[in-house]
Protein backbone atom coordinates (compact mmCIF):
# COMPACT_ATOMS: atom_id res chain seq x y z
CA UNK A 1 0.00 0.00 0.00
CA UNK A 2 1.52 3.33 -1.02
CA UNK A 3 1.59 6.11 1.56
CA UNK A 4 -0.03 8.90 -0.36
CA UNK A 5 -3.73 9.25 0.36
CA UNK A 6 -4.30 10.79 -3.05
CA UNK A 7 -3.00 7.89 -5.15
CA UNK A 8 -5.42 5.45 -6.77
CA UNK A 9 -4.28 2.37 -8.65
CA UNK A 10 -6.54 -0.12 -10.42
CA UNK A 11 -5.42 -3.10 -12.40
CA UNK A 12 -6.78 -5.94 -14.43
CA UNK A 13 -5.66 -9.29 -15.87
CA UNK A 14 -7.94 -10.89 -18.39
CA UNK A 15 -8.25 -12.63 -21.73
CA UNK A 16 -7.40 -10.31 -24.63
CA UNK A 17 -10.64 -10.18 -26.58
CA UNK A 18 -12.66 -7.50 -28.32
CA UNK A 19 -14.90 -7.06 -25.29
CA UNK A 20 -11.83 -6.35 -23.13
CA UNK A 21 -12.17 -2.82 -24.46
CA UNK A 22 -15.50 -2.37 -22.66
CA UNK A 23 -14.03 -3.92 -19.52
CA UNK A 24 -11.21 -1.38 -19.63
CA UNK A 25 -13.68 1.50 -19.92
CA UNK A 26 -15.26 0.28 -16.68
CA UNK A 27 -11.85 0.04 -15.04
CA UNK A 28 -11.07 3.62 -16.10
CA UNK A 29 -14.39 4.69 -14.55
CA UNK A 30 -13.28 3.16 -11.25
CA UNK A 31 -10.01 5.11 -11.46
CA UNK A 32 -12.01 8.36 -11.69
CA UNK A 33 -14.22 7.30 -8.77
CA UNK A 34 -11.07 6.87 -6.70
CA UNK A 35 -9.58 10.18 -7.90
CA UNK A 36 -12.59 12.42 -8.49
CA UNK A 37 -10.49 15.61 -8.81
CA UNK A 38 -8.94 14.70 -12.20
CA UNK A 39 -9.93 17.37 -14.77
CA UNK A 40 -12.20 16.39 -17.67
CA UNK A 41 -9.59 17.16 -20.34
CA UNK A 42 -7.03 14.91 -18.61
CA UNK A 43 -9.62 12.14 -18.30
CA UNK A 44 -10.36 12.42 -22.02
CA UNK A 45 -6.69 12.43 -23.10
CA UNK A 46 -5.83 9.46 -20.89
CA UNK A 47 -8.88 7.31 -21.63
CA UNK A 48 -8.52 7.93 -25.38
CA UNK A 49 -4.89 6.72 -25.36
CA UNK A 50 -5.59 3.77 -23.06
CA UNK A 51 -8.43 2.51 -25.25
CA UNK A 52 -6.34 2.88 -28.44
CA UNK A 53 -3.49 0.82 -26.94
CA UNK A 54 -5.96 -1.83 -25.75
CA UNK A 55 -7.49 -1.99 -29.24
CA UNK A 56 -4.01 -2.29 -30.74
CA UNK A 57 -3.20 -5.22 -28.45
CA UNK A 58 -6.43 -7.00 -29.34
CA UNK A 59 -6.13 -6.25 -33.04
CA UNK A 60 -2.43 -6.52 -33.86
CA UNK A 61 -0.71 -8.55 -31.19
CA UNK A 62 -3.16 -11.41 -31.60
CA UNK A 63 -4.14 -11.00 -35.22
CA UNK A 64 -2.17 -13.95 -36.55
CA UNK A 65 -3.66 -16.41 -34.06
CA UNK A 66 -6.88 -17.01 -35.97
CA UNK A 67 -10.19 -18.21 -34.63
CA UNK A 68 -9.10 -21.37 -32.85
CA UNK A 69 -6.44 -19.88 -30.59
CA UNK A 70 -7.50 -18.82 -27.13
CA UNK A 71 -5.62 -18.19 -23.93
CA UNK A 72 -3.94 -14.93 -24.96
CA UNK A 73 -3.76 -12.70 -21.90
CA UNK A 74 -2.98 -9.14 -20.98
CA UNK A 75 -2.71 -7.11 -17.86
CA UNK A 76 -3.01 -3.40 -17.33
CA UNK A 77 -2.42 -1.15 -14.37
CA UNK A 78 -3.79 2.41 -14.17
CA UNK A 79 -2.49 4.94 -11.69
CA UNK A 80 -3.66 8.43 -10.75
CA UNK A 81 -1.52 10.59 -8.47
CA UNK A 82 -1.61 14.35 -7.90
CA UNK A 83 0.61 15.14 -10.90
CA UNK A 84 0.11 12.38 -13.45
CA UNK A 85 -1.91 9.54 -14.90
CA UNK A 86 0.02 6.43 -15.88
CA UNK A 87 -1.04 3.23 -17.63
CA UNK A 88 1.17 0.18 -18.11
CA UNK A 89 0.16 -2.80 -20.24
CA UNK A 90 1.78 -6.22 -20.65
CA UNK A 91 0.71 -8.92 -23.10
CA UNK A 92 2.12 -12.13 -24.50
CA UNK A 93 1.14 -11.50 -28.10
CA UNK A 94 3.29 -10.96 -31.19
CA UNK A 95 5.92 -8.24 -31.07
CA UNK A 96 4.89 -4.79 -32.31
CA UNK A 97 6.89 -3.98 -35.43
CA UNK A 98 6.11 -0.30 -35.55
CA UNK A 99 8.53 2.50 -34.62
CA UNK A 100 6.51 4.88 -32.45
CA UNK A 101 8.84 7.77 -33.20
CA UNK A 102 7.81 7.68 -36.86
CA UNK A 103 4.06 7.24 -36.31
CA UNK A 104 2.15 9.98 -38.09
CA UNK A 105 -1.45 10.83 -38.77
CA UNK A 106 -2.61 9.40 -42.12
CA UNK A 107 -4.40 11.56 -44.73
CA UNK A 108 -7.94 12.72 -44.05
CA UNK A 109 -9.55 10.08 -46.27
CA UNK A 110 -7.83 7.07 -44.63
CA UNK A 111 -10.30 4.70 -43.03
CA UNK A 112 -7.75 3.23 -40.58
CA UNK A 113 -4.21 3.67 -39.32
CA UNK A 114 -4.91 6.45 -36.81
CA UNK A 115 -4.86 4.40 -33.60
CA UNK A 116 -1.31 4.85 -32.35
CA UNK A 117 -0.99 8.35 -33.82
CA UNK A 118 -4.08 9.39 -31.86
CA UNK A 119 -2.82 7.74 -28.67
CA UNK A 120 0.52 9.47 -29.07
CA UNK A 121 -1.04 12.86 -29.77
CA UNK A 122 -3.41 12.59 -26.80
CA UNK A 123 -0.84 12.12 -24.04
CA UNK A 124 2.62 13.34 -23.02
CA UNK A 125 4.34 10.01 -23.52
CA UNK A 126 3.56 6.73 -25.25
CA UNK A 127 6.26 4.06 -25.09
CA UNK A 128 6.66 0.42 -26.16
CA UNK A 129 9.29 -2.17 -25.45
CA UNK A 130 9.56 -5.92 -25.82
CA UNK A 131 11.04 -7.91 -22.95
CA UNK A 132 11.50 -11.62 -23.73
CA UNK A 133 8.10 -12.78 -24.99
CA UNK A 134 6.17 -9.93 -23.39
CA UNK A 135 5.09 -6.63 -24.96
CA UNK A 136 5.06 -3.63 -22.63
CA UNK A 137 3.23 -0.41 -23.39
CA UNK A 138 3.21 2.63 -21.16
CA UNK A 139 1.24 5.85 -21.28
CA UNK A 140 1.96 8.98 -19.24
CA UNK A 141 -0.25 12.02 -19.05
CA UNK A 142 0.81 14.98 -16.93
CA UNK A 143 -2.22 16.47 -15.21
CA UNK A 144 -3.07 20.10 -15.74
CA UNK A 145 -2.02 22.15 -12.72
Amino acid at each position, binding site marked *: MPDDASVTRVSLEAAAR*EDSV*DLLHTLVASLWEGSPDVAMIDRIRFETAVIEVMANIVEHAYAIDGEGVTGRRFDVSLLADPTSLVATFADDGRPCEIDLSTVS*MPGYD*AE*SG*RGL*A*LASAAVDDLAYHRDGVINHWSITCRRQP
Partner: protein
Amino acid sequence: MIEFKVETTSRGIGVVTPVGRLNMVSARRLGEVVTELVGAGTNRIVVDMAQTDFMDSSGLGALIAGLKTTRQAGGDLRLACPTEQIQTVLELTNLNKVLRPRPTVEGAFDA
Protein backbone atom coordinates in the same frame (compact mmCIF):
# COMPACT_ATOMS: atom_id res chain seq x y z
CA MET B 1 -22.50 -1.14 -25.22
CA ILE B 2 -24.06 0.57 -28.21
CA GLU B 3 -27.41 1.07 -29.86
CA PHE B 4 -28.07 2.87 -33.13
CA LYS B 5 -31.27 4.85 -33.57
CA VAL B 6 -32.09 5.54 -37.21
CA GLU B 7 -34.73 8.00 -38.45
CA THR B 8 -35.51 9.74 -41.72
CA THR B 9 -36.76 13.34 -41.53
CA SER B 10 -39.54 14.83 -43.67
CA ARG B 11 -36.77 16.48 -45.73
CA GLY B 12 -35.38 13.01 -46.57
CA ILE B 13 -32.33 13.32 -44.33
CA GLY B 14 -31.20 10.22 -42.44
CA VAL B 15 -30.41 10.77 -38.76
CA VAL B 16 -28.24 8.12 -37.12
CA THR B 17 -27.82 8.36 -33.34
CA PRO B 18 -25.17 6.07 -31.80
CA VAL B 19 -26.03 5.67 -28.11
CA GLY B 20 -23.03 4.39 -26.13
CA ARG B 21 -19.47 3.90 -27.30
CA LEU B 22 -18.22 3.85 -30.86
CA ASN B 23 -15.24 1.50 -30.82
CA MET B 24 -13.71 -1.44 -32.71
CA VAL B 25 -16.78 -3.56 -32.00
CA SER B 26 -19.50 -1.04 -32.84
CA ALA B 27 -17.79 0.94 -35.66
CA ARG B 28 -18.52 -1.86 -38.16
CA ARG B 29 -22.22 -1.57 -37.44
CA LEU B 30 -22.17 2.18 -38.01
CA GLY B 31 -20.65 1.48 -41.45
CA GLU B 32 -23.44 -1.00 -42.20
CA VAL B 33 -26.17 1.41 -41.09
CA VAL B 34 -24.82 4.13 -43.43
CA THR B 35 -24.49 1.69 -46.33
CA GLU B 36 -28.08 0.51 -45.84
CA LEU B 37 -29.43 4.07 -45.75
CA VAL B 38 -27.57 5.02 -48.94
CA GLY B 39 -28.70 1.78 -50.56
CA ALA B 40 -32.30 2.76 -49.74
CA GLY B 41 -31.80 6.16 -51.41
CA THR B 42 -30.97 8.34 -48.40
CA ASN B 43 -27.66 9.96 -49.26
CA ARG B 44 -27.75 12.90 -46.82
CA ILE B 45 -26.99 11.62 -43.35
CA VAL B 46 -26.52 13.35 -39.99
CA VAL B 47 -24.74 11.41 -37.26
CA ASP B 48 -26.04 12.81 -33.97
CA MET B 49 -23.20 12.33 -31.47
CA ALA B 50 -24.90 13.84 -28.41
CA GLN B 51 -25.32 10.41 -26.83
CA THR B 52 -22.02 8.90 -28.03
CA ASP B 53 -20.07 8.60 -24.80
CA PHE B 54 -16.76 7.77 -26.43
CA MET B 55 -15.29 7.39 -29.90
CA ASP B 56 -11.96 5.82 -30.83
CA SER B 57 -10.01 5.71 -34.10
CA SER B 58 -12.17 2.92 -35.53
CA GLY B 59 -15.22 5.13 -34.97
CA LEU B 60 -13.42 7.87 -36.91
CA GLY B 61 -12.64 5.35 -39.66
CA ALA B 62 -16.32 4.43 -39.92
CA LEU B 63 -17.29 8.12 -40.17
CA ILE B 64 -14.74 8.69 -42.97
CA ALA B 65 -16.02 5.59 -44.78
CA GLY B 66 -19.58 6.90 -44.39
CA LEU B 67 -18.53 10.32 -45.73
CA LYS B 68 -17.15 8.66 -48.86
CA THR B 69 -20.19 6.41 -49.32
CA THR B 70 -22.65 9.32 -49.11
CA ARG B 71 -20.56 11.61 -51.34
CA GLN B 72 -20.18 8.92 -54.00
CA ALA B 73 -23.99 8.78 -54.06
CA GLY B 74 -24.15 12.57 -54.49
CA GLY B 75 -24.94 13.28 -50.82
CA ASP B 76 -22.96 14.05 -47.68
CA LEU B 77 -22.44 12.95 -44.07
CA ARG B 78 -22.40 15.49 -41.26
CA LEU B 79 -21.69 15.30 -37.55
CA ALA B 80 -23.86 17.03 -34.99
CA CYS B 81 -23.56 17.74 -31.27
CA PRO B 82 -20.23 16.08 -30.45
CA THR B 83 -19.35 15.60 -26.79
CA GLU B 84 -16.07 16.96 -25.43
CA GLN B 85 -14.25 13.64 -25.93
CA ILE B 86 -15.33 13.50 -29.57
CA GLN B 87 -14.31 17.12 -30.21
CA THR B 88 -10.91 16.33 -28.69
CA VAL B 89 -10.46 13.27 -30.91
CA LEU B 90 -11.44 15.28 -34.02
CA GLU B 91 -8.90 17.97 -33.13
CA LEU B 92 -6.07 15.56 -32.33
CA THR B 93 -6.55 13.77 -35.66
CA ASN B 94 -7.03 16.98 -37.69
CA LEU B 95 -10.40 15.74 -38.87
CA ASN B 96 -12.43 18.64 -37.51
CA LYS B 97 -12.34 20.29 -40.93
CA VAL B 98 -13.47 17.33 -42.99
CA LEU B 99 -15.90 16.23 -40.26
CA ARG B 100 -16.81 19.75 -39.11
CA PRO B 101 -19.28 19.28 -36.25
CA ARG B 102 -22.58 21.19 -36.41
CA PRO B 103 -24.31 22.48 -33.29
CA THR B 104 -27.75 21.01 -34.12
CA VAL B 105 -29.15 18.00 -35.94
CA GLU B 106 -31.91 20.10 -37.56
CA GLY B 107 -29.48 22.65 -39.00
CA ALA B 108 -26.74 20.21 -40.00
CA PHE B 109 -27.55 20.49 -43.73
CA ASP B 110 -28.34 24.20 -43.75
CA ALA B 111 -24.84 25.35 -44.75
